[in-house]
C-alpha cells in the first residue's frame, strides 16, 4: 500500500515524509484522504489567499495498477467561494505522484519569492522561479520548464499562467498542457503562495500480493474498456457529443441563459468540430480511451500573405457551452480562439464564460457602462470577448478587478444578481436540464455538475418529488466519493462497479467488499459535509439566480417552490448526518 504523505512547507523551504498506513487503509486515497489531511493541516478560518491555506494532492490505490484510474484530487480552500475547494484532473499527475512514491502531497505556507517545486522520488527541490514569474502564457511556462527538467514521458508538470499570478479567483492549474484542476481557483492559491509550478517524477515500483490474480483482473478491466460500449461516447466525439442532444432537449444555456436552445449549436457541435477541426486525440496516462480532443486551428496573418500559424486547442463540452452558446458564439474559429485565450492565461473556462455572459447582459441593461468594460461586449462578438479576457488578467479597471473575483462578487457590487449564474459562488456548468441539475449545483459539495450528475438524473427521471430528487442526488454523490477516493475517472464509472473495484483491490492487499465500498462512500460524504460546514458553509445563505426559473428547461419552467421544498428536506438530512 502506498501510504507516504509528502508535506512541503514553503514558509521555510523544508519538507518531510510521513507514513500513514491507517489513513489510507480507512479512507483509500483521493477525496477520502484529502478531507482528512485538510482537517489535520488547515485552520478552517484561514483566508484562502493567505499562507495559512493548504493544498492537498491525493491519489488512490488503483493508480497506477489499473487503467482508467489516473485522476488526482486537489483539495484547498477556494478563493472563489470561500469554502471547500476540490478539483480533479487527469493527465499524468496521479501516475507521476505514485511513481515518486507518494499517496498524497501537502503544500503549506507561502514562498517569499517566486519558486517552482520539483519532487523527485525522496527529494524536493525548491527552484528559483523569479524568471518565470510574470510570463502570462502557461504554454510557454510549460515549454521552458520542459527544457530544463528531466523526466520526459514520465513527469507531471502542474503550472499556472498569468491569471493565477494575478489571483483571478477562478484561475486554474494546468497539467500536461491539456488537463486542468479547473474549478474553484486552485491557480490563485498557487499564485498566493508564489508557486509557479510543481513537477513530480520518479520510478518507484509496487508489487501485487497476488501476481496471478492481479494480471487476471487487469486483463478483465482492460477487455471491458476496449470492447464494451461503456465508454464509446468518450472515444468518438468526446464530451462534445453532448452539444446537439442537450440543445435538442432545450437544456443548452445560451446568451447568459436567456434561452436554452442555441440556433447555431450545430456549427459548434462535436460532430462539426470532428469533421472540420479535429487534429489529434490524446490520452491521460494509463487510459486507452483518449478522450482529449485537439482541434487544429489555422489562422492567417492579416498583412503577411502565405504566413499561417496552426494552433492545437483542446475542446470539451463545457468549454463549448461557456465560451460558445453562453456567449452567443456560433462560429467554430471564434470559439476556438476564445478557448485558446482562456488556456493561455490559465483561467477556468466555465467561470470565465459565465462572467463574460453576465457582463454582456449588465452592459445591455446599463448596469455597467463601456467605461467599465473598456470594450463593447455583445453576444456573438468574438473580438470584444478576446479583449475582455485579456482584461480579466490585466485588471485595468475596478470593474475587471471585481469580475476577476467571480460573477457572484461582481453582481454583489454592481447588481444584476438575478442573472448572475452562480451557485454557492461557483459559476454554473452547461446544463439547464431541470430540478436535479439546479439542486446538484446548490447542494453538491463542489457545486459542480460532476458531484452528483443532476443533469443526468433530469434526463432519466421526470416525475420525482423534491424529496426523491434529493435522495437520489445524495446517493449518487456518496458513491462518487468512493470513486474519487480510488481515484477512478468518472467517465469509467460504468466499468468500475463495486464488484469490479472489490476484485481489483484484492491482489493489492486491500480487502473490501462491494457493500463496504458503498458504505465508505456515505462516510466520506459525511466527513466532507462536516469539513464544509467547518469552513463556513451555510445552506441558508445559498441564493438562486432568478433566471433559472424564467427560462424553460427540459422540465419546463421550474418552480421555486419545488426547489425550496427540496432544500428544506436536504437541510433536515444534513442535520441528521452531522
Amino acid at each position: 500500500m502506498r501510504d507516504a504523505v509528502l508535506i512541503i512547507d514553503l514558509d521555510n523551504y523544508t519538507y518531510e515524509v510521513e507514513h500513514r498506513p491507517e489513513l489510507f487503509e480507512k479512507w483509500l486515497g483521493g477525496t477520502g484522504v484529502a478531507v482528512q489531511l485538510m482537517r489535520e493541516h488547515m485552520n478552517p478560518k484561514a483566508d484562502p489567499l493567505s499562507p495559512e491555506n493548504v493544498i492537498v494532492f491525493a491519489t488512490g490505490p488503483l493508480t497506477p495498477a489499473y487503467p482508467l484510474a489516473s485522476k488526482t484530487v486537489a483539495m484547498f480552500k477556494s478563493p472563489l467561494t470561500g469554502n471547500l475547494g476540490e478539483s480533479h484532473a487527469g493527465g499524468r499527475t496521479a501516475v507521476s505522484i505514485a511513481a515518486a512514491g507518494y499517496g498524497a502531497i501537502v503544500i503549506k505556507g507561502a514562498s517569499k519569492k517566486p519558486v517552482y517545486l520539483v519532487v523527485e522520488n525522496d527529494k524536493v527541490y525548491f527552484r528559483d522561479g523569479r524568471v518565470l514569474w510574470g510570463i502570462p502564457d502557461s504554454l510557454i511556462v510549460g515549454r521552458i520548464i520542459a527544457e530544463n527538467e528531466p523526466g520526459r514521458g514520465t513527469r507531471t508538470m502542474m503550472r499556472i499562467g498569468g491569471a493565477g499570478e494575478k489571483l483571478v479567483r477562478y484561475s486554474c492549474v494546468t497539467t500536461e498542457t491539456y488537463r486542468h484542476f479547473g474549478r474553484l481557483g486552485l491557480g490563485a492559491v498557487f499564485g498566493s503562495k508564489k508557486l509557479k509550478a510543481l513537477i513530480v517524477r520518479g520510478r518507484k515500483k509496487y508489487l501485487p500480493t497476488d501476481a496471478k490474480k492481479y494480471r487476471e483482473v487487469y486483463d478483465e478491466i482492460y477487455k471491458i474498456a476496449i470492447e464494451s460500449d461503456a465508454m464509446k461516447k468518450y472515444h468518438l466525439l468526446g464530451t462534445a457529443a453532448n452539444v446537439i442532444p442537450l440543445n435538442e432537449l432545450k437544456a443548452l444555456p445560451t446568451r447568459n441563459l436567456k434561452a436554452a436552445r442555441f440556433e447555431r449549436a450545430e456549427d459548434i457541435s462535436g460532430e462539426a468540430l470532428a469533421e472540420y477541426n479535429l487534429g489529434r486525440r490524446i490520452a491521460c496516462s494509463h487510459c486507452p480511451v483518449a478522450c482529449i480532443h485537439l482541434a487544429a486551428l489555422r489562422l492567417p496573418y492579416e498583412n503577411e500573405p502565405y504566413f499561417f500559424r496552426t494552433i492545437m486547442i483542446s475542446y470539451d463540452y463545457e468549454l463549448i457551452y461557456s465560451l460558445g452558446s453562453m456567449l452567443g458564439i456560433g462560429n467554430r474559429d471564434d470559439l476556438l480562439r476564445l478557448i485558446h485565450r482562456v488556456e493561455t492565461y490559465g483561467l477556468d473556462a466555465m467561470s470565465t464564460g459565465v462572467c463574460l455572459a453576465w457582463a454582456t447582459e449588465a452592459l445591455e441593461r446599463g448596469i455597467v457602462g463601456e467605461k467599465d468594460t473598456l470594450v463593447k461586449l455583445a453576444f456573438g462578438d468574438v473580438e470584444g470577448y478576446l479583449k475582455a479576457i485579456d482584461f480579466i488578467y490585466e485588471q485595468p479597471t475596478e470593474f475587471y478587478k471585481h469580475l476577476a473575483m467571480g460573477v457572484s462578487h461582481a453582481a454583489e457590487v454592481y447588481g444584476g444578481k438575478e442573472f448572475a449564474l452562480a451557485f454557492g459562488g461557483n459559476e454554473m456548468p452547461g446544463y439547464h436540464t431541470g430540478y436535479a441539475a439546479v439542486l446538484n449545483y446548490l447542494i453538491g459539495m463542489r457545486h459542480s455538475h460532476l458531484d452528483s450528475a443532476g443533469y443526468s438524473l433530469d434526463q432519466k427521471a421526470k416525475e420525482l418529488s423534491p424529496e426523491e430528487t434529493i435522495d437520489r442526488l445524495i446517493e449518487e454523490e456518496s458513491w462518487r466519493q468512493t470513486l474519487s477516493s480510488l481515484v477512478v475517472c468518472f467517465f469509467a464509472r460504468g466499468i468500475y462497479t463495486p464488484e469490479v473495484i472489490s476484485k481489483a483491490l484484492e491482489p493489492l492487499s486491500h480487502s473490501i467488499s462491494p457493500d463496504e465500498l458503498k458504505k465508505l462512500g456515505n462516510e466520506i460524504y459525511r466527513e466532507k459535509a462536516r469539513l464544509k460546514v467547518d469552513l463556513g458553509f451555510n445552506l441558508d445563505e445559498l441564493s438562486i439566480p432568478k433566471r433559472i426559473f424564467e427560462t424553460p428547461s427540459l422540465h419546463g419552467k421550474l418552480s421555486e417552490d419545488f426547489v425550496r421544498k427540496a432544500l428544506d428536506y436536504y437541510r433536515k438530512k444534513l442535520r441528521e448526518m452531522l
Partner: protein
Amino acid sequence: MKLSKKRWGGVKRLVVEDIEKCVGCGLCMFACSRRSAKNPEIGNSSSAILPVSLSGFERGATVIFCRACEEPPCAQVCPSGALKPKKGGGVVYVENLCLGCHYCVEACTLNAIFVREDGKIAVCIHCGYCADYCPHGVIAYKEVEA
C-alpha cells in the same frame, strides 16, 4: 538488404506500425512492467518502453525502445557481461551480472536503456507482451524480414 533478410528472417520483433496514432496513454509502458507472469510489477520502474511527446503531444509522439541492433553498442561497452548480443540482433540481459554502471545507457544512441528504481537497467528483449495492450495499433509484434 539481402544480408539482413537472411539473418533476420523469421525473427519476431516489436515494431512501430503507425506512430501518428499514438495518444500517449503509456499502456505499453505499464504492460512492460507486468510482463513477468511470476513477478509482475506495478508502475514504470522496470519498463523498457517509453512513449514521449515531441515537445507536447499536439506535435505527435515517439515510442522509445530497443531496435535490436545487429552490433549493439550497449553490449560492447558492458564490462560485466550482463548485456550480450543476441543471435539475430538485440541483446540478452543477465540481471545478476549487472553492476548498474550505466555505460550501456550512455552508449545507446536511442536512449532505449532505462534505469530502474534499484539502479539496474531495463532493456526491451522483444517479448511482444506490450503490443497486446496498445489500444490504437501503434505498435505490433510481428515477424520482420529486414
